């Protein structure tokens, strides 16, 4: 495969991105989002995961669950570079929806080699939302780590932790262990034995749950025991890239919103952007965002065209985006001054989404530790 100099970001990708930008501007502007998710500041809201299902239907109607599904399964088969463009817009708008979760699940399903998985992809293309249940109690996302087992009767037992947007999706893609190794299973959220326990979380733009599985017998096998780790490793670069793209889009919103404040807020008879203590941090935010953004498209392009480099590029993108998200979030509050510290200001919504994405699928330091194994060699390997 050749590696396109323009990342393969073609006109179709551009149209998808522009459409998303416009739809979300119309239906998920910051004021509307704040009214939706931050109408209450009571602690109870932490488990609610408020969202707008009518907007979700519009997103499905526009085919956004189908964009990443291969053509043979009824999707549009667009490259990850186009999906990254879409994810950037989802992050920019901080839209609460199961789309990020579903796109991630799509790449896992697409890496499976089973009829059940192809069937699942067709359902996703038609609008099914799915979330991955693949993190253990300790927060580990390593392919072999899970607190769900397949018992001798073939039923799923245990708890899947940190399941994203669990309250919004129709099905779960569960990682479970048996003596033959890790496999992947499709479980409908309303299947017998499935109990969804919402977590109280800080992020107002999503929900999270731990899912208790007791004697869940009618799970479909998407990847056979022993094949799950391969599938997850294959899909992981896409997942990291998508979350990184979301963070880059959100960070750009934070940058522009803070820059606008710096252009208009007057102190000491000057717009505060005059002061280098405000101006230079804004520039540093921009520099970090641009680095992360370039790495996101690099990673997406590598996934599409240069599989051998995909893992490396994706970890770089996630690491850079996580660091950028953390830094930009902090500065967006600090540079807004007192108003930025209030509930009524919009920026805490993005702040909290970023802190959440920062750790999802491994934070920056985790990604760098994995990169070190690859780029430097494992510890102890040097003579």
């Amino acid at each position, binding site marked *: 495969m050749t590696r396109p100099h323009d990342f393969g970001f073609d006109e179709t990708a551009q149209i998808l991105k522009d459409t998303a930008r416009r739809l979300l501007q119309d239906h998920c502007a910051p004021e509307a989002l704040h009214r939706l998710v931050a109408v209450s500041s009571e602690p109870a809201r932490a488990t609610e995961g408020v969202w707008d299902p009518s907007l979700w239907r519009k997103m499905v109607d526009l085919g956004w669950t189908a964009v990443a599904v291969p053509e043979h399964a009824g999707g549009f088969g667009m490259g990850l570079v186009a999906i990254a463009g879409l994810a950037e817009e989802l992050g920019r708008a901080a839209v609460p929806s199961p789309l990020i979760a579903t796109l991630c699940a799509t790449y896992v399903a697409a890496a499976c080699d089973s009829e059940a998985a192809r069937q699942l992809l067709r359902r996703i293309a038609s609008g099914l939302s799915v979330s991955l249940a693949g993190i253990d109690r300790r927060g580990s996302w390593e392919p072999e780590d899970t607190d769900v087992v397949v018992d001798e009767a073939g039923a799923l037992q245990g708890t899947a932790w940190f399941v994203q947007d669990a309250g919004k999706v129709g099905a779960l893609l569960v990682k479970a262990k048996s003596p033959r190794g890790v496999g992947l299973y499709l479980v409908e959220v309303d299947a017998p034995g499935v109990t969804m326990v919402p977590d109280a979380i*800080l992020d107002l733009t999503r929900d999270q749950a*731990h899912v208790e599985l007791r004697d869940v017998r009618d799970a479909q096998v998407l990847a056979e025991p022993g094949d799950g780790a391969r599938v997850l490793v294959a899909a992981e670069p896409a997942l990291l890239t998508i979350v990184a793209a979301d963070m880059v889009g959100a960070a750009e919103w934070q940058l522009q919103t803070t820059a606008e404040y710096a252009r208009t807020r*007057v102190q000491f008879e000057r717009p505060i952007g005059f002061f280098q203590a405000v101006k230079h941090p804004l520039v540093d935010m921009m520099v970090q965002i641009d680095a992360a953004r370039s790495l996101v498209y690099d990673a997406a392009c590598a996934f599409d065209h240069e599989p051998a480099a995909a893992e490396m590029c994706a970890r770089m993108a996630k690491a850079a985006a996580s660091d950028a998200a953390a830094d930009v979030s902090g500065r967006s509050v600090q540079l807004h001054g007192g108003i*930025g*510290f209030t509930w009524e200001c919009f920026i805490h919504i993005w702040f909290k989404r970023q802190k959440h994405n920062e750790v999802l699928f491994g934070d920056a330091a985790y990604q760098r530790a994995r990169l070190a194994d690859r780029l430097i060699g494992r510890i102890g390997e040097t003579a």
Partner: protein
Amino acid sequence: MTTSAQSDSNEQAAFRAHCKAWLAGNLPPRPSFRLPLGPLEIATVEQLEYLCDWQKAAHAAGLVGCDYPREYGGGGLRDCQWIANHELKAAGAPFFPNIVGLGMAAPTIFHHGTEAQKRRLLPPLFSAEEIWCQGFSEPGAGSDLANVQAYAQRDGERWIVNGHKVWTTLAHFATWMILLCRTDRARKYEGMTYFVAPIRDGVGHGVAIRPLVKMTGELGFNEVFFEDYPIADDLRLDEPGRGWAVAMTTLLHERGAGPLVTPSSGGGVGDDGETTLGAAGLVELAKRSYRHGKPASDDPRLRDAIVQLLIRQRAFAQNERRAAVPALVDHPLRLPLQHKLTLSELLQDTARLACEIEGMAATLHQTDPNAPAGGRWPHAYMNSYGFTIAAGSNEVQRNILGERVLNLAKSK
């Protein structure tokens, strides 16, 4: 030639012994409800009452206002408050709630008040019978405090105030407010006057208090609106037009000298770092958290980061120690003016690292039963921005240090 070990004076030694003895037997029992992390986060009346009772008891025992004259409710001692603070911290005592009173109002009243004002206002301040809040910031006067617009119009023996103050910590619990108003629109720095306003009595008579919600979802500070609110002229501090100079006394104490007269606020990073929000808490957290399948405390990168904070925490305490040794101080404001800057950034970086140690669990709200350490760290991280922004943002602190200590040209 031998090394001299300067120790406490006789008075100080006796006082220290008194503190230790009293604290050994008189710490309040742990309450059944959650205590706030610092005075800025007092949210409920039961929290306030518990803490006020504690301050009152400590005052009665002579541990509050020690260095103020007895006729103003003080202890009449010399250079003893830091000993009380140290012993309070060492004993793990709760903080005192009347933070604005002790840290800002008391020294300001002491330096600028009349004899009658001092006798009236200081004793109930020390005993926490009257809580104080600060009315400086406005929507258009945050970092640029000299832009205060709230206007007090002279009307015989009283002043009529109209205006809008924000970020007023404790206003909903306060009896008194230190209040900076404009009294002459033609002059900036010379056009301000400083009052002590009985705002609790004013509610409904020209004072309205609206709580503001923080990004954490909690209450903690307020907007205060004045509409034709009358203040008696004998509640003015110092002369009309001297408000900026008086406010500078307040801010000097807020920004630096505060810890010399009151236990340090904002999360309690002490000499020994025992409090829950100190960097020492990171060590325990790291031992209970996992990373790469091992305790996070085994990750050399996190170990390095934790130790960096432990070093900063000790340096903070040693700065306070050195500030009291004139031979090792180059400029009298150099260390005091760093106090707020370094403490607030230490707290912020500590909380940020704690969230990193927690990993995915840092996504959890403090109401989630699975949140590590009761969810205090992500919460503390957000609240830390209150501290880096408030009381003159750290950007303004750096200006002040550069201009007053390094004599650099004014940036404004």
